[in-house]
């Protein structure tokens, strides 16, 4: 037993460069695998974090068409509805287009009551409510742009022309790690008052209504009631749970996700081929030694353990390093592209999958050589070694 480990350890270091390159390849592959899986997770993060007890009501024709404000009061009267709020996509540009972050004009009193996961200090909330030009921003973008409370934040309108200026009154933090901390909220009233003056046709309209339910299990029923209420009206509605709403965004990009997933498995397949080649080469060079060990009376399983052990030793060491690197790598990506992927957290599943993939690579790579070395008789082994 002691010699088994001694032989494995020393054999591993026999070709330091070859081992190093193989290890490097596996580290990169496993880290890439982890990042790709995390990217897929990040895509679904919005849906994952969404609540099942909230409904989103939007224009049936298209999300880009608004709904009349007065629908809100009607929805509030529908059975099963607890509270209603509204939000309007603002789509302003902060200094440069690439500084994208989502902005919503909301009715603050009802909106934040519906979204307890946005945690705002009470005094900041009070200041925001008192200032019609006030804004609340998520911690991540505040840090990214170096904003401080009281700062003027100019946004160049795209849907609503002109340069709009807001005063940062509050910073919200997420109640948990799945909460998006990159959003920006302004007063819907403020937007609407301005629209009344400059574009009366666009006034008194909202993008979506957000509906809090008395009982989450009634979601499908209440959604039906809401849509029935507005059937055959000027703007028909489409109501779905927040999760379904988020997933419909993901669905638009599903093809990309499938590609990313496929690539993540491809990376594993490639490194498997690389490792299998390394092990085949290694076992080939050591045929004489395996034959000698067998002649001396070492059992077949000793030879197999020697080969599988070396393969697992290399892959597991490299895989552990790669899996460990997923976290810092993801943190880096999360920081750098935080506004594209507001939630970029490495799940335990991803790390476990990376480890399992490593194990699989090690076993598959060793299987062929181990089988060959253990089925060859001693004299065949010596003849093959020349």
């Amino acid at each position, binding site marked *: 037993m002691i*010699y088994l480990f*001694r*032989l494995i350890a020393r054999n591993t270091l026999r070709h330091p460069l070859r081992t190093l390159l193989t290890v490097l390849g596996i580290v990169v592959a496993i880290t890439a695998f982890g990042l790709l899986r995390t990217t897929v997770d990040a895509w679904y993060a919005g849906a994952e974090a969404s609540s099942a007890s909230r409904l989103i009501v939007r224009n049936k024709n298209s999300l880009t068409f608004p709904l009349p404000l007065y629908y809100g009061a009607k929805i509030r009267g529908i059975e099963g509805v607890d509270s209603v709020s509204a939000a309007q996509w603002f789509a302003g540009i902060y200094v440069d287009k690439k500084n994208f972050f989502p902005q919503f004009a909301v009715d603050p009193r009802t909106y934040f009551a519906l979204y307890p996961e946005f945690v705002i200090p009470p005094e900041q909330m009070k200041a925001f409510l008192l200032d019609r030009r006030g804004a609340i921003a998520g911690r991540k973008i505040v840090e990214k742009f170096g904003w401080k409370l009281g700062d003027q934040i100019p946004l160049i309108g795209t849907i609503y022309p002109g340069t709009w200026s807001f005063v940062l009154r509050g910073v919200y933090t997420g109640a948990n790690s799945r909460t998006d901390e990159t959003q920006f909220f302004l007063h819907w009233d403020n937007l609407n008052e301005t629209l009344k003056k400059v574009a009366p046709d666009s006034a008194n309209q909202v993008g979506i209504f957000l509906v809090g339910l008395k009982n989450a299990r009634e979601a499908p029923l209440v959604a039906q009631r809401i849509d029935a209420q507005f059937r055959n009206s000027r703007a028909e509605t489409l109501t779905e749970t927040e999760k379904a709403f988020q997933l419909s965004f993901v669905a638009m990009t599903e093809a990309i996700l499938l590609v990313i997933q496929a690539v993540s498995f491809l990376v594993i397949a490639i490194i498997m081929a690389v490792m299998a080649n390394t092990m085949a080469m290694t076992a080939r060079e050591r045929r*004489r030694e395996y034959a*000698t060990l*067998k*002649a001396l*009376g*070492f059992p*077949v399983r000793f030879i197999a353990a020697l080969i599988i052990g070396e393969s697992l030793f290399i892959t597991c060491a490299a895989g552990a390093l790669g899996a460990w690197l997923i976290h810092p790598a993801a943190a880096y990506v999360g920081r750098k592209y935080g506004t594209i992927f507001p939630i970029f957290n490495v799940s335990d599943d991803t790390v476990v999958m990376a480890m399992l993939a490593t194990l699989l690579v090690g076993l598959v790579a060793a299987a062929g050589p181990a089988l060959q070395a253990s089925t060859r008789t001693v004299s065949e082994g010596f003849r093959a070694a020349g």
Partner: protein
Amino acid sequence: MTAVVEIEHLSKAYQRGGQVVPVLQDITLTLQTGDFVALMGPSGSGKSTLLNLIAGIDAPDSGLLRVAGVDITGLRESELAQWRAEHVGFIFQFYNLMPVLTAYENVELPLTLTHLSRRQRCEHARLALDLVNLSDRADHYPSQLSGGQQQRVAIARALVTDPTIIVADEPTGDLDRVSAREILDLLESLNDSLRRTIIMVTHDQAAAECAHIVRHLEKGVLTDKIEYPRERAQA
């Protein structure tokens, strides 16, 4: 004297390109404990094949093969491996030491298949290295040793388990004259003073003269037998 190797009507053929090539035909041979036998013959005559059969690393097609009192043709691969560990010491033309193990570790290696304690293993391995005069090279790796020294380590490895027979396939085939002489002297003294049974394949007349029985193989058939009196071998 007791017979350690009993061979009767032993045959072996190989398949090559769909053709059956007979390698050993109807071999009958008996070796006694303490014998030092040299197997000679032209290249391809089947010397290595016969040696491999006796050593239990290849299987015959037909015939009787009893070595160390065991009919090894009836053993399964795992049993055969155990039997080899217990009864056979190997010396190869190309030494076949583990390159990642030191001289000492190479000698200790086969002892890990026995029930000896770590301390006993250490004692045996030191003793064997002493016997081949390489105690001062115990910590050297094979690549740091000359061919002759490597072969001496291999001899230490072959005798450390105290095997019933030692098989050597052209043990001097890869060595210069001086180193070869050292190895032959060593084998001779193992046979003389330690009564080891040795079967050696060789092309070298000088090597054959160390043995006291020389058998010739010709196209897979044993031909003449030359016996040297023991006194001469000892001289």
